[in-house]
């Protein structure tokens, strides 16, 4: 889901940078008001977890690869704004140091994986776990569903971003200038590989970690819910 340089035209790249600027600013403002000093190590562990998760490329035999992100997990632990900051740090370092995701596409990649993913994941978790008791299994299920749905939403959006490029930018003879694949291919590929494979990986990881923390250190989660 890390869109490289060259796949998105200047219009899309510029648009997502412009959209991300106020999001980063508002997220920092929320973190300033809500993140407690004792949560800072969790923020660092969360960012590190996400970074290394994205290195675990899982193969579709003979096809492509994909990976989990852990965005919903971070959002459930720290709140979506803090998760947005942590994921942005991971994505920036991946792009700058390792060429994983483009510099021009960083705004779009951050919108997909550092904004949409944790915010959608957080509110899906809150919705499904509404009024659930602290030790309730519904929280674990809510976490899994949040992981599954949020990564699929992000994948769908990445598919749309890829797919609109041939419509936006082409030569007079109709040859694509950037991503050559249209919506009819990019959206189904991105969505199906996450619906059937990588979404489940994200769901299981999110649910297992939340289950473990609920059992051993529930105070970590409650902090994520504006205690």
């Amino acid at each position, binding site marked *: 889901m*890390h*869109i*490289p*340089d*060259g*796949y998105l035209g200047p219009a899309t790249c510029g648009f997502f940078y412009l959209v991300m600027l106020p999001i980063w600013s508002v997220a920092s403002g929320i*973190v*300033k*008001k809500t*993140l407690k*000093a004792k*949560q*800072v*190590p*969790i*923020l*660092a*562990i969360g*960012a*590190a*977890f996400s*970074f*290394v*998760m994205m*290195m*675990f*490329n*899982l*193969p*579709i*035999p*003979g*096809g*492509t*690869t*994909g*990976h989990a992100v852990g965005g919903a997990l971070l959002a459930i632990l720290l709140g979506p704004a803090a998760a947005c*900051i942590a994921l942005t*740090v*991971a994505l920036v370092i*991946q*792009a*700058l*140091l*390792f*060429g994983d995701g*483009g510099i*021009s596409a960083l705004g779009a990649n951050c919108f997909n994986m550092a904004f949409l993913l944790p915010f959608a994941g957080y509110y899906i978790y809150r919705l499904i776990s509404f009024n659930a008791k602290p030790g309730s299994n519904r929280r674990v299920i809510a976490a899994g569903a949040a992981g599954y749905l949020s990564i699929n939403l992000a994948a769908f959006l990445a598919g749309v971003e890829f797919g609109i490029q041939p419509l936006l930018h082409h030569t007079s003879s109709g*040859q*694509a*200038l*950037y*991503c*050559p*694949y249209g919506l009819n291919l*990019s959206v189904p*590929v991105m969505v199906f590989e996450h619906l059937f494979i990588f979404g489940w990986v994200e769901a299981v990881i999110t649910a297992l970690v939340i289950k473990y*923390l609920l059992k*051993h250190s529930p105070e*970590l989660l409650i902090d994520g819910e504006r205690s």
Partner: protein
Amino acid sequence: MKIISKLWIFIVLLIVLSPLGLLLPDHFKAGSAWGEWGPDEIKNLVGFMPQGLEKLSHLWSAPFPDYAFKGWEDKPLLNLSFAYLVSAVIGIVLVVFVTLILGKALSVKDKKQESL
């Protein structure tokens, strides 16, 4: 043991296992992630080189491209696994460093707060 220490150990364990993210796709003959092909790959796939893509794809030259060392593209898998592991260590150290600084700068200041 405190939960924070356990979580750090979990991260170290994941770093040690990270070369699996290189070895598994290789074993199952899976290529790049969809939409993350290099310019040469895309030329093979669609039969032409999108002109804007060719230009923009050279925008940035990362110091550790694809979690490997520069010029190591054709090295054996064992060397690449080592580079992958080193990349995970470098990446995590930087990510942790930056988030700790950002977190400290942003977090709610509490006069009675205990040290980390």
